[in-house]
């Protein structure tokens, strides 16, 4: 019997049902009606009442609804670019380059533009903490004063560890602090160190200086692994100068020839006219070889270069190797020698032999004062690896009474970070100034909140003679004090940061100029302009000391890759590099930068191992396959990205990832049932590569040899904003040897000189189906982008994001191709016989005159304006996405969700002049119509017409290379009218007849006759 127990029925349990009571249908409806009516009334009552609360007392300079601009100095890295901070109703909402600044000249990099978002980071430290407990500054000062007295009495030392770029005021404060506490030393630690460059100049020229390089004056640039357009020393200034020296027009056609020698595809390499791909450990041999040939060509070198280089290159997998590179050196030397004073060799390798060789080549070229300014050095860079090592030893020995760390994070980014954190414990007291409770701060006894660069008084001298003020654009969110203020307070002197700067300037800066006789006038002008040009302090270097050269290891000069370092050995090398966005990791808490596509790989939200296509094939690794990298000391698993232009023996991985606290981005994207978190809870965004770096001869080296690489068989999602990398039609869509698509049109300087139409594809005869549809009687907005100037640095991408309230969508959404950036930079590879060439092409709404999107919108949410704009009207849009389907350029972006714009504090960065789009709305580039309207209204109010250049979209404004020109085509004298008639002008997909309002100028590469492109 399957059911031994009878199953009870409902009737059995409830034998006497009660008579039905309560509501019948009619009563229910009545009650419902009443309730509904009541709800509606309640809803009417006070729902939409809004308050308008004016100031109590209006500050004189603030007009609600209009922007106030403050000149200041960027604090994103130590380059110290000039910025203008746009303040609306008391809060900074955008940072732009200061066009008057003598170095950065109006440009600003992606990192600098994103600094405004990190101001509103709600996780920044607000209050001082002693042993984890929130404390008042008084208590902090008392504790530190007691410890300092104890330190002095116990004859122990005080060490102040800061990053590069300290200004006159901080240095003066350190000096007066040192006077009070004699055994005090200031140690400058920079994770992206160029210490060897400074040390090499100390050996060769007698002064520890980093020269100021002038790319604008160079006609031949040879860069040994210096990513000067991306992350090296001062990328904005260098990009601007580089572009200035590379114009294929003009009577002289002064376009420099740029050769990049590197092992990975860097941003700078992607712009080079020629790339030579070598292993990082071959650099010193190649530099020695080049020095030998340059000495031969110029006849100027010291005798030591007289013996011919004997290359014995190491090859691991039959890739283009050092031997091939060696064979190119005589040609390179000939070019450099021909350029003479206009030749320039830069070296990004942090090794003394390399740097000394580069300096000696520059000296042989006689370019001092022309392309290499030694009299006017880059005074912001005083990185010192040796002293950082000494500090570590001192800490370990327990001779340090107090350690002050300001704005650097050695536990995270020093190769011996683990040792550092242990050694910190041996100091009597560690005081760390930090914006977040970071890896170093968590080991500190006292954590002090470090102010954001937008809320602090500070100063800088990026290049000798250019002094620059940093002024606060908002009152500090936290209870922060500047380093100078603290150091002075600890010596018993209460001075505000502003007063400290004024005092330092009065004594150290004001006497260096004679334009102003009165200090107040000079100070006010400097704060107003953001900078002042004064006499550089003489660097006091002597002429090149050739006796240094014979001391360089002989093998360095003669044998590429031999005996130079411990990196030799078979197998792979791993190279660690900073990215344009995160640099050494200091910007890891900034979601704009985390989601900024890498300029070369276009990957977001992760670091990964770049492997060459050939190596990928050899190891059977495809994009996203997780590979295990073993160095003998470390084991690391990372997803692979196949990178054309990469050396076959070299795996490169970005620094700056794996920062503590980046699991905050777990829920950065929209929450829905299929959502995949950007980072797993408790994990970090990417992996920290800093411990993999080696200390080699006192310098932090960016590469390591003897690495083995194996497949793990696992796969990790890589989110990239570009999936098609070639201009050729994919094989499955087109016949073999299909033509290269004319999206990027390029030519060589020689061909262009011969015929202005070189590189241009034949234009189609387009018959319009819309004759005379639009008559642009007032303005006709138009944009052109010079592909020769564009370096792909991505400053415009972040500039656009800041200006137009574009949200961050998270890794998963990017993977689903749902990123919202209005402006993207397409990067195309062209495989060539001897390597790969790269083109960067900013792609944004082309504002087509015959826009395909407009004809398919069923609700007229996208229509044409009488000034040539393709308008997107958010309040009309119903989200059919037909427009996006019909867009040939794929520049329309759809809001699949109500994307988070951060917390209450994060939302303060929103631009009040631009609508925050909601779910179900299509959006796209508007040519920054809010700026157009603002410019037009200003002109009307002043009773004049709009001036050319007055209206500038965020992308044009931010471009360090000034590649973008925007203006009114109806103004025949405008820059854009000239650009429209330029022989290099073309439009993308012109043949489909949509008449875009964005054009491009062809990409011209300076490829001298008979030159191949290696790599």
């Amino acid at each position, binding site marked *: 019997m399957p059911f031994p127990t009878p199953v009870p029925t409902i009737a059995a349990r409830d034998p006497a049902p009660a008579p039905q009571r309560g509501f019948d249908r009619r009563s229910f409806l009545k009650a419902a009606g009443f309730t509904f009516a009541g709800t509606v009334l309640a809803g*009417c009552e*006070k*729902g939409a*009442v809004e308050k*308008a*609360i004016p100031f*109590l007392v*209006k500050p004189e300079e603030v007009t609600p609804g209009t922007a106030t601009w403050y000149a200041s100095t960027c604090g994103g890295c130590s380059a110290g670019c000039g910025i203008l901070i746009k303040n609306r109703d008391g809060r900074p909402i955008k940072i732009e380059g200061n066009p008057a600044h003598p170095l950065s000249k109006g440009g600003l990099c992606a990192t600098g533009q994103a600094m405004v978002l990190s101001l509103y980071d709600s996780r920044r430290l607000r209050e001082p903490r002693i042993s984890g407990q929130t404390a008042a500054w008084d208590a902090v000062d008392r504790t530190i004063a007691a410890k300092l007295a104890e330190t002095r009495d116990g004859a122990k030392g005080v060490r102040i560890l800061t990053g590069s770029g300290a200004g006159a005021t901080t240095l003066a404060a350190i000096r007066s602090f040192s006077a009070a506490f004699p055994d005090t030393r200031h140690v400058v630690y920079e994770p992206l160190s160029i210490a060897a460059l400074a040390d090499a100049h100390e050996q060769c020229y007698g002064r520890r200086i980093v020269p100021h390089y002038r790319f604008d004056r160079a006609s031949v640039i040879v860069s040994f692994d210096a990513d000067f357009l991306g992350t090296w020393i001062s990328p904005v200034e260098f990009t601007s100068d580089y572009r200035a020296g590379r114009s294929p027009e003009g009577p002289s056609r002064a376009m420099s020839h740029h050769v990049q020698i590197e092992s990975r595809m860097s941003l700078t390499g992607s712009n080079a006219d020629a790339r030579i791909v070598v292993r990082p450990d071959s650099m010193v041999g190649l530099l020695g070889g080049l020095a030998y040939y340059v000495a031969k060509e110029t006849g100027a070198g010291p005798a030591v270069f007289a013996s011919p280089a004997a290359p014995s290159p190491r090859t691991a997998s039959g890739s283009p190797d050092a031997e091939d590179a060696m064979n190119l050196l005589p040609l390179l030397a000939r070019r450099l020698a021909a350029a003479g004073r206009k030749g320039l060799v830069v070296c990004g390798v942090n090794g003394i032999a390399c740097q000394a060789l580069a300096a000696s080549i520059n000296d042989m070229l006689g370019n001092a004062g022309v392309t290499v300014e030694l009299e006017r050095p880059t005074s912001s860079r005083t990185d010192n690896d040796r002293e950082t090592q000494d500090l570590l030893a001192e800490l370990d020995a327990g001779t340090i009474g107090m350690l002050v760390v300001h704005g650097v994070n050695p536990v995270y980014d020093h190769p011996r970070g683990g040792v550092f954190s242990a050694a910190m414990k041996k100091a009597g007291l560690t005081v760390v100034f930090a914006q977040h409770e970071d890896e170093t701060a968590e080991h500190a006894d006292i954590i002090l909140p470090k102010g954001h660069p937008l809320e602090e008084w500070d100063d800088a001298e990026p290049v000798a003679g250019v002094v620059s003020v940093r002024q606060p654009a908002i009152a500090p969110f936290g209870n922060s004090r500047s380093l100078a203020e603290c150091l002075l307070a600890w010596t018993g002197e209460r001075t505000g940061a502003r007063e400290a700067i004024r005092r330092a300037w009065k004594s150290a800066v004001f006497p260096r100029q004679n334009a102003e006789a009165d200090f107040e006038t000079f100070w006010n002008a400097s704060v107003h302009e953001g900078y002042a040009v004064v006499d550089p302090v003489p660097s006091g270097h002597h002429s090149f000391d050739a006796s240094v050269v014979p001391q360089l290891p002989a093998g360095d000069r003669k044998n590429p890759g031999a005996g130079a370092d411990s990196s030799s050995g078979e197998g792979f090398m791993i190279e660690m590099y900073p990215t344009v966005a995160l640099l050494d990791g200091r910007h890891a808490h900034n979601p704009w930068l985390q989601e900024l596509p890498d300029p070369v790989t276009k990957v977001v939200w992760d670091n990964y191992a770049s492997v060459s296509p050939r190596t990928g094939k050899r190891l059977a690794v495809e994009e996203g396959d997780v590979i295990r990298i073993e160095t003998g000391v470390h084991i690391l698993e990372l997803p692979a990205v196949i990178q054309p232009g990469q050396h076959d023996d070299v795996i490169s991985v970005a620094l700056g990832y794996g920062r503590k606290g980046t699991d905050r981005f777990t829920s950065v994207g929209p929450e829905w049932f299929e959502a995949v978190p950007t980072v797993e809870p408790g994990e970090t965004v990417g992996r920290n590569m800093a411990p993999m770096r080696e200390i080699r001869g006192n310098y932090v080296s960016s590469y390591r040899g003897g690495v083995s690489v194996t497949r793990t068989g696992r796969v990790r999602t890589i989110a990239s904003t570009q999936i098609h990398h070639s201009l050729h039609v994919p094989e499955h869509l087109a016949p073999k040897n299909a033509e290269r698509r004319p999206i990027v049109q390029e030519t060589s300087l020689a061909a262009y000189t011969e015929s202005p139409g070189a590189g241009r594809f034949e234009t189609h005869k387009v018959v319009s189906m819309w004759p005379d549809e639009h008559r642009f009687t007032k303005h006709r907005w138009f944009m052109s982008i010079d592909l020769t100037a564009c370096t792909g640095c991505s400053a415009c991408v972040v500039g656009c994001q800041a200006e137009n309230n574009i949200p961050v969508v998270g890794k998963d959404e990017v993977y689903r191709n749902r990123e919202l950036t209005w402006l993207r930079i397409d990067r195309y590879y062209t495989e060539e016989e001897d390597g790969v060439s790269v083109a960067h092409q900013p792609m944004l709404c082309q504002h087509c005159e015959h826009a395909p999107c407009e004809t398919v919108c069923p609700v007229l949410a996208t229509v044409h304006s009488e000034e040539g704009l393709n308008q997107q009207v958010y309040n009309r849009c119903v989200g059919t996405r037909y427009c996006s389907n019909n867009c040939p350029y794929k520049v329309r972006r759809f809001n699949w969700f109500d994307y988070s714009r951060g917390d209450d504090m994060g939302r303060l960065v929103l631009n009040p002049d631009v609508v925050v789009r909601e779910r179900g709305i299509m959006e796209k580039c508007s040519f920054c119509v809010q700026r157009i*309207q603002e410019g037009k209204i200003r002109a009307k*109010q002043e009773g004049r017409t709009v001036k050319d250049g007055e209206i500038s979209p965020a992308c044009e404004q931010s471009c360090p290379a000034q590649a973008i020109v925007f203006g009114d085509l109806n103004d025949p004298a405008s820059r854009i009218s000239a650009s429209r008639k330029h022989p290099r002008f073309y439009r993308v997909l012109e043949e489909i007849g949509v008449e875009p309002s964005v054009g491009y100028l062809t990409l011209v590469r300076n490829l001298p006759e008979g030159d191949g492109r290696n790599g």
Partner: protein
Amino acid sequence: MGLNNRILSIFLGSGLLLCLTIFLTSYANNVRLPGNHEGYEPVQPISYSHRLHAGELQIPCLHCHSDAGRSRNAGIPTVETCMNCHRFVTAPIVDVKAEDQRAEKSGEKPRRIISAELKKLYDAAGMNPELRPDPGKTPQPVAWVKVHRLPDFAYFNHGAHVSAGVECQACHGAIETMERVRQVSDLSMGWCVNCHRGSNAQGVNGRAVAAPTDCTGCHF
């Protein structure tokens, strides 16, 4: 069955009536009705009279709304702006005169008369009846109720209109006759565009203007 229902109906009905009564008597003027809110006339925290200031006393609009000519926002005067005059004017002239007469009659020194509405202003400024800063009071800006409100997707710039010569009354109505400000125009898109088209055809006060009729004139 019938009784229960009837009781419920009476209960609900009277509740609704009560709601309506409370609502109509006390909040009627604060209601923002669905639609374009034409006729919205909320009670303000201080019953400031535009009729008196702009009408009778003929103070120009831009005297207090000084940003209207140069900014997107017309700007609501700060307490400090009010105090420029009301440091001296503390009550209606009739009350002051009455006090003067009384004082004259009784031979006393006239007392300072502070009207009930202006007391609110002095409270906001953190001042005592002697118009001196009162340490016991925290100065607080006045939370005015916004009358004219455009949705966030519409950009409006006062400066552009004022500098083009558009009268304030063209949109705000005869504000100088209003005891309490009322929304006169419906501020709908059609109303805006009609005016822009008309102005482009006929000009504003005899001056040719270029009023945008593109979507992105206002929506971006």
